[in-house]
């Protein structure tokens, strides 16, 4: 089966994609409304917590961090797949990424925005959050450059701004198409402004290619560093269960994993909501599914490495935390994480499930559930079973405020994502055209060589 039909007319591509920007279907409004309602829950929780204090989240000594940090890591991880699809696969000339990278890239940006909010709601004094940034001030004070949390703040801001630039740069030719095709109104003005006078001249294309490639190359090390630094938040501390040198690659693998799973989910939703069957085809889905399976196995391996290194480290405290995870209060969640993260992806190894949409939808949600549990299982058990036995406390449970915030963050993400899909083309039109063109050239060539070979055979 082909990744994409080779005989789609370019005008039809424009038409199909631009249709997604027009009056939404009812389903779109339903999704938007649900997302808004979910966000409302989170806003309510935050207002309450802001007014009364962090105590309402039911954190205590020693449970200083909770679901906020776990979900923060989850969203940061989610952001990695966009860069993987758009930048890494771009450099590797994997052109099957073309119809789907735009929404993956948007996912990167929005999940980073969501993650940033979790830092804010986690802070005891969110109104002083700017203290953590190296801004010039009269008092001559700087943040503490030794703290991994500061590296975090800087890495996330850099990654966020770069991925916005990358998303935007890659969209310029498409914005020009929108500018030319859309009816008069505020959006026409917006596209005119954003497309920066794009006319599609040779010189513009050349400059565009160079810029896009440069930003892509710049983004890849950033993506790796961001999650390595998030891993450093834990690896650099000396708490049992955190002080593990394999954390950075483990976190990066986990990030790509949950990101790819999320791409499958969104792929299926977009394909259905915007009727993109022509572009988001099953063979492309199959390729992401295989990629996800490979990353799932890497993650499983790194998990095993972590357990083994803790088990044979003879560090009793770390070992106790591991035993606690597998048999204590958190055991159901820990085993659920192992099940969702390492067992469920085995389904993806079977060819007949690799294009089965209902199965894939369920599996991708389960994978992300597993990855969220993984982050929670990194954060929480260490607090409940630290180095100092007097502080052991296995019974502290996050309150509805924390759960509400986690729940609402999915609404916030969906809201941003759905609005983006209505305002900007979520399938890259110019790259799909490129892909169609290249594929048709290729098959022409094949046909010719085929004819030639056939002719050659005849001569003998």
């Amino acid at each position, binding site marked *: 089966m082909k990744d994409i039909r080779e005989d789609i007319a370019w005008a039809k591509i424009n038409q199909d994609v631009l249709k997604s920007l027009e009056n939404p279907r009812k389903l779109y409004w339903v999704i938007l409304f649900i997302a808004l309602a979910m966000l409302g829950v989170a806003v309510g929780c935050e207002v309450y917590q802001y007014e*009364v*204090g*962090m*105590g309402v989240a*039911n*954190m*205590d*000594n*020693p*449970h*200083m*961090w909770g679901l906020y940090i776990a979900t923060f890591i989850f969203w940061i991880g989610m952001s990695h797949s966009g860069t993987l699809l758009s930048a890494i696969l771009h450099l590797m000339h994997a052109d099957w990424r073309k119809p789907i990278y735009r929404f993956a890239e948007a996912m990167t940006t929005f999940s980073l925005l969501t993650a940033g909010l979790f830092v804010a709601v*986690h*802070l*005891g*004094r*969110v109104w*002083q*959050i700017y*203290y*953590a940034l190296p801004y*010039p*001030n009269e008092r*001559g*004070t*700087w*943040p*503490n*450059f*030794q*703290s*991994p*949390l*500061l590296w*975090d*703040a800087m890495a996330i801001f850099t990654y966020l701004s770069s991925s916005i630039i990358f998303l935007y740069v890659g969209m310029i030719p498409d914005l020009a198409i929108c500018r030319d095709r859309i009816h008069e109104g505020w959006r026409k003005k917006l596209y005119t402004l954003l497309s920066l006078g794009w006319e599609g001249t040779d010189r513009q294309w050349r400059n565009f290619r160079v810029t896009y490639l440069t930003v892509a190359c710049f983004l890849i090390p950033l993506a790796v560093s961001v999650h390595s630094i998030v891993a450093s*938040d834990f690896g*650099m*501390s*000396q*708490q049992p269960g955190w002080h593990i040198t394999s954390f950075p690659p483990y976190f990066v693998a986990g990030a790509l994993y949950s990101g790819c799973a999320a791409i499958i989910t969104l792929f299926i939703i977009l394909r259905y909501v915007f009727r993109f069957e022509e572009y988001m085809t099953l063979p492309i889905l199959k390729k992401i599914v295989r990629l996800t399976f490979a990353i799932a196995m890497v993650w499983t391996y790194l998990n095993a490495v972590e357990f083994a290194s803790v088990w044979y480290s003879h560090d009793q405290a770390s070992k106790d935390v591991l035993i606690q995870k597998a048999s204590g209060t958190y055991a159901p969640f820990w085993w659920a994480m192992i099940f969702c993260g390492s067992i469920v992806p085995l389904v993806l190894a079977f060819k007949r499930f690799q294009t089965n949409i209902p199965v894939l939808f369920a599996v991708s949600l389960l994978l992300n559930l597993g990855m969220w549990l993984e982050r929670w299982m990194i954060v929480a058990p260490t*607090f409940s079973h*630290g*180095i*100092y036995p*007097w*502080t052991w*406390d296995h019974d*502290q449970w996050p309150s509805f405020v924390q759960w509400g915030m986690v729940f609402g963050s999915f609404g916030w993400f969906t809201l941003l994502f759905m609005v983006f899909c209505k305002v900007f083309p979520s399938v890259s039109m110019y790259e799909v055209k490129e892909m169609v063109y290249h594929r048709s050239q290729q098959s022409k060539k094949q046909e010719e060589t085929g004819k030639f070979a056939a002719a050659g055979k005849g001569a003998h």
Partner: protein
Amino acid sequence: MSISNLLENWSQFRHTHPVEDKPHDPYKWAMSIDLDACSGCNACSVACYAENNLPVVGKEKYANGQVMHWIRIEHYWDEDVGEEGGREFPDQGAQFLPMMCQQCEAAPCETVCPVGATNHTPDGLNSQIYNRCIGSRYCSANCPYKVRYFNWYDYPSTENIWPAEMTQQLNPDVTVRGKGVMEKCTFCVQRLAAAKVTAKSEGRIVQDGEVQTACQQACPTSAISFGNLVDPESRVHKQWRAQQVELDKDKQAKDEKEGGTELRGYRILEDMRPYPSVMYLERVRESAI
């Protein structure tokens, strides 16, 4: 501009190793606690509440783990309690251990604070700047002793934390902390500062016994001694030397000796190398009760 400040001053920030390089001159505040003398009466904890304006959070929050005691009395029941044929109340044995911030020389909490709100002072204290704290709680996450306490609620504005007539007894030398900041034992830094000012105006350094921490003052059995470790005449210095406990070691030479040692001095979690400033004297009697 602050870039020059960054290059000139902040590049020196924790450039030196707090134990190996920095000479504590003329002060290094330290403590020693005799567990044999401790009867677990909690007077130290109460004194600390009074001295440092600690909020009394009430039963519900206490049960919820949100208590604010800077010094806590940990009780460890004897091994045979609750077991078959073991002892029951009142014959049961228990051991007590007062636990407060250990004022580590290489404090795990200091390096991780994103805003530099917790720092080392030249006289060996682990200081906390309430105004700078943004409440990321990373310090507590990395504290092996978990002796940092977070203001989960806005206690000063909460009812019954300090009943109206009792606001008059708040210590004017100590800040009342609002919600969202971290706090912990300061070794009664307000008393130290006052004593240092007095001594300086008289052109001398603080003498041993001139300054006491609130917990030390309240201890009925004098289990807690506090003073200047640099001063060879101080009680703390003598105790540390008698016990052969050295501040800048992660393993004491006396413990290396074959057959062990009769000396009682030890520091908690010493091998993790936080270089704590509190020495405990091991219990010799079987139990406190």
